[in-house]
């Protein structure tokens, strides 16, 4: 099956997944230090 997703929505999904991981403490500031 070939599923196509709009890039805008894909960006929103990725950003919210990262945001949730940060909020629940899986991704920490030290780990992501830029």
């Amino acid at each position, binding site marked *: 099956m070939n599923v196509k997703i709009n890039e*805008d929505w894909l960006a*929103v999904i990725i*950003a919210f997944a990262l*945001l949730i991981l*940060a909020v629940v403490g899986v991704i920490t500031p030290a*780990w992501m230090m*830029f």
Partner: protein
Amino acid sequence: MTTAKVPAKAQSSNNLVGFLVGLAVVVVLAFVARWLKIQVYGANLPLGIPGKALEYPLWAALVGLIVNYILKTVNVYDFMKSGFRTELFLKVGLVLLGAGISFKVIVTAAAGAIVQALIMVTAVYFFCWWLSGKFGLPDTLRAVMSTAISICGVSAAIAAAGSVLAKKEEITYVTALVIVTALPLMVIAPLLAGLMGLPEPIAGAWFGGNVDTTAAVVGAGTIYGKTAQQIASIVKQTQNALIGVVAFLLALYFSVVVEGKKERPSAAVIWQRFPKFVLGFIVTSLLFTFGLIAKDPGAAIAAMKDWAFCLAFVCMGLELSAGQIKKMGWNPIIVYLIVTVFNTILALIVSYLIFGWLFPAKL
């Protein structure tokens, strides 16, 4: 010439490998850009330039450009280019940026941004349309170029091209022009703003109205300061929201006036072309405003935002295709450069009046 048929399955797995390799190259280059930024940050450079003036967007675009040249020289660029996703990384970064901006700031800045966007888009679009007509450029190229320069570079060029059925070469040509001018502007605009002593909100509004592509707008804002980055992003996203309206009006004009068709394009294109990631940006800002993002997660999100932008700037350098520009001669380049100067001066006046006087953004 004989051509061998490649089975679809092999082609698809080859594409996936190319995408993954390209993505890996982008990630490695982002680490290199970050390393370069750290090395230079504390140093004093020649001509008294402080190292911290050279922020990561500059290094990321630079390493992207160098590796772009190397990959093309050794003929592996096409294999991995599907992994170079400037727009995707940029949009992820912008949604995450919302998680650090109070919704009150967005509302305050958006009021000025809407007025600025309406003035800038209208004035720059029609100036470019008129000037390109004087230089005898084809209508489809005029439409794509005018939309790209007045709204938001690459994505606006693609949206306009869909509305006026422009040739593929015209899109790649305008896209290349956008990046070639946006990359130096990303560095020059903050330097000029510093020389003029512009406050950060006004400088941010200027970058948002003047620099052609969203990635370079964010880059210029990042180089100038945190507030400049926030205001530049809000102003540019407000401008981006007009893509759908312009795409619809262009489709209507080309269908009715140029092609003489009776059927009208659907207004649904306004929603189809609306940049949906802006909605994500607003929601993350609301989460931040209602205190749902604590200090530690907030710091992690801010760092991820910087990583996403860094990946986008690397891709911007990687995606530059200067070879396209040679193909169409000098006339479109002259038009583009004159309109860029017009855009830069007008945006400075308009942002000064709006963000310095009419709607001063208080952060």
